[in-house]
């Protein structure tokens, strides 16, 4: 591994490629912790004995280099740089007994822990991937038999349903579908048609009853329907300004005439 100062000025192609790979990583997804872990390897010591101060200096030097080379660093690399710069100053200065918060040593220990943990996970991932893998080292049954789902349907009914069904059948004849009786109904549309035809001939006041159609005056049911329809039609025509309506007193005959 190249010394960090040399990362950007190495001569050999291999070193340059390695340096580039690192830069790509910086640009990409591995993050500042990954960079720190990579840099820590230059110390060639157990991660537990690592000099965080030295590591911070290495990181800051790296970031300076990157800046000089106008390499755009992602925000989290700069955040880490700021934090390491802070940590570095705290590590170099004598501890301030008044200071709040964690000591520089605690912070450094935590960073070392993070690096060690990440390293441990990397190693575990490698061990995991090296295990006997299904489809590579071990194999499943080539002809698996589907478990046939035998669907058994049971039907159920309650006593209530049984009795209601029986009652329904036995009382079926008591009902017939409701049908509206249209033979004895004179509609308002019919009345309107009739009135429009007749009103031209009624220049003077005529009683409304005289407008009832033939054959609808005798049977009470038919007379009621025709009277109602004719009255409604006359109201409609009055509204339209075609006729005038007159009634001398309550319950007196209603008369109409064409409006002039």
């Amino acid at each position, binding site marked *: 591994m190249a010394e960090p100062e040399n990362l950007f000025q190495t001569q050999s192609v291999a070193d340059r490629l390695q340096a580039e790979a690192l830069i790509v990583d910086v640009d990409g997804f591995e993050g500042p912790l990954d960079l720190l872990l990579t840099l820590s390897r230059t110390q060639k010591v157990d991660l537990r004995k690592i000099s965080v101060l030295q590591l911070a200096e290495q990181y800051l030097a790296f970031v300076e280099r990157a800046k000089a080379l106008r390499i755009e660093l992602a925000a989290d690399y700069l955040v880490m740089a700021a934090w390491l710069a802070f940590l570095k100053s705290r590590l170099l200065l004598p501890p301030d007994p008044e200071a709040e918060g964690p000591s520089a040593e605690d912070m450094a220990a935590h960073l070392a822990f993070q690096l060690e943990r990440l390293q441990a996970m990397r190693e575990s991932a490698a061990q995991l991937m090296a295990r006997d893998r299904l489809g590579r080292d071990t194999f499943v049954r080539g002809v698996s038999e589907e478990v046939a789902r035998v669907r058994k349907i049971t039907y159920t009914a309650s006593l209530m349903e049984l009795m209601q069904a029986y009652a329904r059948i*036995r009382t079926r004849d008591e009902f017939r579908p409701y049908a509206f009786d249209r033979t004895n109904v004179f509609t308002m549309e019919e009345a309107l048609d009739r009135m429009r035809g007749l009103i031209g001939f009624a220049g003077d006041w005529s009683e409304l009853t005289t407008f009832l159609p033939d054959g609808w005056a005798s049977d009470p049911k038919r007379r009621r329907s025709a009277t109602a329809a004719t009255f409604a039609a006359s109201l409609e025509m009055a509204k339209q300004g075609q006729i005038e309506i007159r009634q001398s007193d309550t319950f007196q005959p209603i008369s109409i005439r064409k409006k002039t």
Partner: protein
Amino acid sequence: MSDEPEVTDEKEQTLFAAPPIAEQERMVEAILFASAEPVTIREMEERMPHGCDPAEALVHLRKRYEGRGVRVVKVGEAWAVRTAPDLAFLMQKETVEERKLSRAAIETLAIIAYHQPVTRAEIEEIRGVAVSRGTIDQLLEMEWIRFGRRRMTPGRPVTFVVTQGFLDHFSLESARDLPGLKELRAAGLLDSRPLPGASSDEDDEDEAQTGQSELFED
């Protein structure tokens, strides 16, 4: 590596000797297990180390699986592992699904319960519609109805009666315990009052009762 001839001999022998037959048997076992298709002896030979004799290994393997839950079987010119035929029942899983009886079925059932023994023609007359073969079959299959005595009328039609299973399901001691129309109405089980003037159902009622009492006298 070593120049000494006797060592070379030994080495060569171990290098080129086929694996022991027990090891070959393991190999055949793994191959047959993992293959989607039956495997021919030739194919096994191609996949196994030089000098192996899959045919012989198969003899051993086949014996090993005799009487087991799976067997080594010959399929045409090839070999495969298959479930023992007597265990085929394990390859299915029964799921029970409960469904409501159709309206046609419950009406038919009700008529049989109230009028038993009743012929198909009588059911149709009461329901006012034809009774499908499937409905009767379904009720027979559920063992809620069964065939009764043939009617001593022309054509000697079969009759249907309800079963003990039916009584058990509906918690009835006997079909006679089914309430009559009047009681159903009194209990508010009929949504309707008879139309004024519509022929009273008293007769109906009586008929049903008569029918029933006739039926149950044995």
